[in-house]
């Protein structure tokens, strides 16, 4: 806590933190000192000079933004002289400004306009006419924004937003003096390194950098502004939707936890899909070989007839349901409740199985809770960050910006362990390039070094952990030299990484699917947990094991029980006491057999054991491994019902399609990757007959004779709180400002910022001895390359939303395969030419991207593109514990296409 000091502003006594920014202190206390270049999220620029004040004992006038408050400071914020200085400075600014406020999209939302108004600087009172000059044309080459230098006040906020907040440094001033102009890259925005995050738009105080919107888009005062949670990744960015006439006209970052105004290109510019004409607006029923529009009643009647028939003839376990990581907690809760209580089966799962099932299994075994131990904001203050299997810059962009800030401004050491030369490598102290699928080996190697060099935290091991001896025996065999043979990481680098990680005051592990999507996914996760336990890096701020969750609500969907083996709150379906509790709560008998997981459902469908499926908002026809098999499985079903907002690749195979509401059309909550339950607020009405999934599920339940009479999402959350201990104190009305982080066991509980303080959820942290097991497939003569798949910045998951965005398609509009230049040369491939990739499961034709981001012998394919679907190639071999498929390693062949 900073020391408090007493100062005076214009005679009023004020208490402030010593060293705090004087301008901020003044503004916080109601002194509206003007200023245009200051922004609390970037370093002080001190260029506009509008915030000049007088300070007793100091000569002249001083910009308040450049002053740190100290005891006894006496400040004059307003007097005639200061106001005249400010008036002239604004006058000077206006003389260089294209005062086209009538047609400026920023009007009503422009800080310069506000000041001109406040100081009464109209055409008659201004001393300087606008300088006559040929106005340069705006730069419209960016797909997302327009840069109009005639409205720029050279405040540097955009440059600092890009550099300091986002860590990208695309923007700069060019030229000097009055010719000073903001440039992106070498000049044209569209040709620059800009990835379209729009942080510059967010911070621009005038109309110089604006969203690229149609002429006449409603301006600030004409719209309703609705704060809600982003529908893309698991960061849970708070967005401010600008709504007019039931349409979202623009999106800004909301100044709230966890993103404080930042977004990525998808969050800010990727939400027009909601307004697209191909939204589903009516139920569809398969008749005469095609999907035809129908009423809700007709659709429900078909579902009832077909599914009840299957249930009667083959039992409830012949029906399976896929819940959705893109739907709300309330919807996921209802879906699993419907499957369990309404249908009578535990065959409910969702795509978390494909991304973090191994996290849930591994961290629950080691710590007792299968989620990110610490919070996003803590990352910025970690002394060491170990990022592995996460291309954070592209998959969790806002978190990546925090990691970069940790390195640049707080001296953190960043260790990246990744087979690809991802963007974070540029910021890393150390990069370890492991062979795909050898994570247990290098993790054991690091721990071997730590033990050999005595860098472990003995006290922590002694007091807080168990099973250390057995673990120690296994790790002993993983000398850096042996690990080098397995992983190809040089032994000295393993030593160096171990030393950095173990000796830092706070070390945080960040990982994602590069760790989890392996047949050894659970082992990998256990190894990261071992590393944290060994060095006492759990249960303190800025430490921990931090799996980054991929989808907006994949954390929540798991939390509320959309998994085949657990009820809400990770309560086991095989525990009789738990079963009894839920039977009492839900008023029906419940099945006690663990249900089928995602991939198992597909196998069962192919074999005829599962005959009917209900899929809510998922698209396994693109997202699941071994798509050819998935396609066969779904075709083999007797009945498939899908609810979605678009006619997805999966919906096209359905017998009944139900039109759902998008995230902006419904209420509820998402739980982000840091366990924070965040409110979703309704901004617009659904098109046509589409309705929120929770209402759809209530209707479905009715067909099965199970009544679900909920009036709103808040009511559902109250029920979740009743049956889910970790959500015990979570209700919609508690989430209005910052949400709440679970565990939040009771009403009034403040939530939990980081887990396992003083005590692990399971009591003691448990070491698990883990041995290295090779990937299911190794390259051989027939399939000599290692294929790995993943996400990219400008698209999301199966592309249902992002590929409908023109702006996102500008950046990337088709699938591709990253291939190392040496390999490209030996196979005879050219950059941007076509290539055939094949594995034992399928083949695709896609575009070549020659890049040394991938190692020789490796190939990377993003999985968003149905027409060149990476998952036709991937391996559905499963981790035996978590049932997660090995999406990250497949043996693959690359062939030149000869025409």
């Amino acid at each position, binding site marked *: 806590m900073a020391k408090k000091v007493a100062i005076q502003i214009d005679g009023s006594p004020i208490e402030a933190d010593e060293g705090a920014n004087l301008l901020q202190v003044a503004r916080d206390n109601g002194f509206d000192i003007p200023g245009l270049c200051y922004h609390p999220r970037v370093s*002080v620029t001190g260029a506009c000079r509008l915030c000049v004040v007088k300070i007793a004992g100091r000569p002249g006038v001083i910009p308040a933004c450049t002053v740190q408050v100290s005891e006894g400071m006496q400040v004059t914020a307003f007097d005639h002289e200061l106001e005249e200085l400010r008036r002239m400075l604004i006058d000077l600014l206006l003389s260089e400004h294209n005062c086209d406020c009538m047609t400026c999209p920023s009007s009503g939302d422009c800080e310069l306009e506000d000041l001109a108004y406040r100081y009464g600087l109209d055409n008659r009172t201004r001393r300087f006419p606008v300088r006559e000059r040929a106005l340069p044309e705006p730069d419209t080459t960016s797909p997302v924004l327009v840069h109009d230098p005639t409205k720029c006040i*050279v405040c540097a906020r955009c440059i600092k937003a890009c550099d300091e907040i986002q860590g990208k440094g695309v923007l700069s001033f060019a030229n*000097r003096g009055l010719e*000073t102009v903001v440039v992106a*890259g070498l000049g044209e925005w569209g040709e*620059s390194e800009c990835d379209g995050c729009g942080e510059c738009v967010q911070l621009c105080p005038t109309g110089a950098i604006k969203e690229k919107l149609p002429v006449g888009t409603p301006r600030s005062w004409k719209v309703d502004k609705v704060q809600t949670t982003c529908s893309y990744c698991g960061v849970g960015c708070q967005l401010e939707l600008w709504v007019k006439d039931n349409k979202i006209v623009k999106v800004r970052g909301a100044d709230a936890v966890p993103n404080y105004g930042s977004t990525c290109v998808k969050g800010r510019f990727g939400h027009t899909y909601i307004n697209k004409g191909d939204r589903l607006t009516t139920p569809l029923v398969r008749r005469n070989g095609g999907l035809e529009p129908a009423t809700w009643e007709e659709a429900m009647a078909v579902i009832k007839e077909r599914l009840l028939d299957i249930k009667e003839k083959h039992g409830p376990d012949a029906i399976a349901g896929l819940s959705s990581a893109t739907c709300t907690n309330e919807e996921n809760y209802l879906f699993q409740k419907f499957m369990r209580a309404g249908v009578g089966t535990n065959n409910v799962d969702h795509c978390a199985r494909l991304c973090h099932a191994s996290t849930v299994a591994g961290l629950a075994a080691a710590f007792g809770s299968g989620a990110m131990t610490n919070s996003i904001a803590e990352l910025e203050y970690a002394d060491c960050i170990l990022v592995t299997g996460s291309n954070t810059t592209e998959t969790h962009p806002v978190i990546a910006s925090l990691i970069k800030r940790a390195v640049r401004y707080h001296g953190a050491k960043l260790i990246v362990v990744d087979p690809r030369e991802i963007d974070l490598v540029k910021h890393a102290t150390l990069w370890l390039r492991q062979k795909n699928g050898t994570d247990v080996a290098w993790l054991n190697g690091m721990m071997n070094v730590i033990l050999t060099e005595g860098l472990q935290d003995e006290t922590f091991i002694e007091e807080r952990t168990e099973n250390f001896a057995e673990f120690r025996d296994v790790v002993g065999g993983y000398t850096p030299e042996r690990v080098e043979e397995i992983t190809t990481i040089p032994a000295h680098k393993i030593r160096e990484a171990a030393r950095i990680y173990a000796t830092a005051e706070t070390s945080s592990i960040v990982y994602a699917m590069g760790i989890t999507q392996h047949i050894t996914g659970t082992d990998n996760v256990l190894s990261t947990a071992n590393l944290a336990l060994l060095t006492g890096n759990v249960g303190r701020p800025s430490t921990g094991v931090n799996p980054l969750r991929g989808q907006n609500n994949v954390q929540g969907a798991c939390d509320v029980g959309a998994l085949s083996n657990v009820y809400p709150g990770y309560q086991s379906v095989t525990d009789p006491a738990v079963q009894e509790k839920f039977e009492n709560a839900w008023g029906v008998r419940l099945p006690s057999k663990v249900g089928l997981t995602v991939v198992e459902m597909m196998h069962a469908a192919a074999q005829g054991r599962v005959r009917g499926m209900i899929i809510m908002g998922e698209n396994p026809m693109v997202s699941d491994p071994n798509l050819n098999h998935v396609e066969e499985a779904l075709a083999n079903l007797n009945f498939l019902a899908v609810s979605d907002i678009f006619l997805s690749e999966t919906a096209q195979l359905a017998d009944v399609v139900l039109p759902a509401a998008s995230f902006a059309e419904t209420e509820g909550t998402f739980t982000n990757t840091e366990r924070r339950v965040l409110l979703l607020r309704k901004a617009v009405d659904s098109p046509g007959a589409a309705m929120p999934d929770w209402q759809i599920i209530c209707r479905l339940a009715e067909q099965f004779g199970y009544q679900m009479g909920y009036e709103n999402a808040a009511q559902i959350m109250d029920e979740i709180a009743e049956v889910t201990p970790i959500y015990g104190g979570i209700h919609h009305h508690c989430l209005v400002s910052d949400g709440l982080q679970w565990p939040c066991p009771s009403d009034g509980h403040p939530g939990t910022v980081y887990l396992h303080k003083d005590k692990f959820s399971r009591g003691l942290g448990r070491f698990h001895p883990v041995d290295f097991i090779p990937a299911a497939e190794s390259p051989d003569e027939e399939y000599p390359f290692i294929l790995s798949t993943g996400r990219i910045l400008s698209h999301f998951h199966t592309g249902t939303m992002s590929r409908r965005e023109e702006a996102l398609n500008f950046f990337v509009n088709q699938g591709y395969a990253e291939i190392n230049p040496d390999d490209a040369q030996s196979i005879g491939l050219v950059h941007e030419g076509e290539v055939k990739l094949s594995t034992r499961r399928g083949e695709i034709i896609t575009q070549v991207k020659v890049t040394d981001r991938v190692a020789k012998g490796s190939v990377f394919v993003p999985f968003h593109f149905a027409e060149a679907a990476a998952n036709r190639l991937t391996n559905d071999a499963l981790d035996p514990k978590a049932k997660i498929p090995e999406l990250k390693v497949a043996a693959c062949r690359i062939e030149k296409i000869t025409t």
Partner: protein
Amino acid sequence: MDMSETTQRRSAVSGLLKRLWEAQRDSGRHYLAREVLREIADDLGLGTGFVRGVASFYSMLSEKPRGQHIIRVCESPPCQLAGAKGLVEELSALLDIPPGGTTADGLFTLELSSCLGACAEAPAIEIDEALYTGVQKEQLPAILAEVKKSAWTGPRPSLVDVFGAPRRLLNGESSSTIQPRDRDYAGLRYALGELSPDDVLDRVTESGLRGRGGAGFPTGRKWGFTRGAAGEPKYIVCNADEGEPGTFKDRVLMEFTPHQIIEGMILAGYAVGAEQGYIYIRGEYAEAIRRVNAAIEAARTAGYLGERILKAPFSFDIKVHQGAGAYVCGEETSLLESMEGKRGIPRLRPPYPATNGLWGRPTVINNVETLANVPFIIREGVKEFRRFGTPSSPGTKLYPLSGAVDRPGIVEAEMGTTLRALIFEHGEGMAEEKEFQAALVGGAAGVFLDEDGLDIPLEYDILAERDAVLGSGAVLVLDKGCEPTPLLEGILHFFAHESCGQCVPCRIGTTRLVELMSRLKNTGTREDFKLMLRIAKNMRQTSLCPLGQSCYPLLKSAVEVFKEDIFAQQGSNLGER
């Protein structure tokens, strides 16, 4: 927010300006193509925007292809008074291009320079790196022909006249000695043999030496701050970015007696505990750069630079950093930014360079002349140093004397010499026996003094009492025939051209002043001049660095000195509306 940067990025950025110079040189057309900028950005791991931002900041770097030979005509006030405008017109006609243009055959580019530092030999032009002084219009065809023949002569020294008394910094030599002379490094030998760093610091403090760059801050105190500051390593930076129009003393020191400067830097390093020094020399001073580099090499060979100097447990070395054309980099924090490879824009202060300088480390930044005084103080003693000058401004001063005097040049005289003595004794009176009207003292950032000011001792405190500044000590003498308005317009244009553009009052104010001044010349009114003073006063109060703050004293003194003459220009409305 803590915004310190990591060392990784630092080293990449710091090499940028040098890379840009080299790339421009290698281009054959004196420019930096977009592709070249991209290549440099990739090599150094920097953003392309950052690289372009730096490349476009400095006037000696170009993003457009230029001619094989670059002609720069000096448009500083002394050259203006000596007919620079005529040279520009003549060259434009001969080459058939406007200023900024390149001839169709790609041979010549014609540019203007804010000051070439040859004010006593005005008017001056620079072709490639060779300086031509006292150029008459009639000589131009021959000069061009010579250049066309590729009669490359290399950098040329200033032919300036040096006189005055007493002579301490420039006593005797009229040409450079690259090899150290007997008296060079005597102070260093003595210090390393007999004195502790504290002794050196004490002596400099006791000497009362004050910064010769303009502000007159006590050098010993400055060193003391750095010596006492936390943080390693510490740096000594010699500010040789002499861009103040009318000023050419540092150039002469560097060309004539570079070892004095080097010795002064080594002594500064010894006193404050620094092992690395940098000399930031403005890009226009090709000959000074060449000579200083040669002198550093000679000093290193002689054992005065490098590891364990003279076998003492003290190491020190010096690197030359070449500027690229930006007056604002003479401001010490801009200079640091520029040295770090960034756009040369001033930093917010505090913190000050003494504690948070180069790369945020404690840094002594001294002007060339300041450092050149240090060897004398150590060698000859404090008492001897203080024998001349005033008690509060001891020592001698180099006064660059230009304009309408009979003998322009560098006058070395004791601190506090009067304008009258400079002009009528050392300068041997007015040129062509014209009548004295006024003098611009301190360069463009200085003030005008008229007859009433002739007997004011030119030193820091007395001038400050009169709202004037000593600045660089430059004295530009104006005779009665000189029209003040074009001169003022030229100076204001200079400020607008050199404004870095960071702060609002200077970025926009300087241009508004130029426009109003030009209006004053034609259709302006007294009200316009009042508005000019109001703008300038605002700039004085609110500008971030001295550049924008300088216009007010200049304009205020102009109206005091020239009175009605400012308004009484041909074609003006005499301001009676």
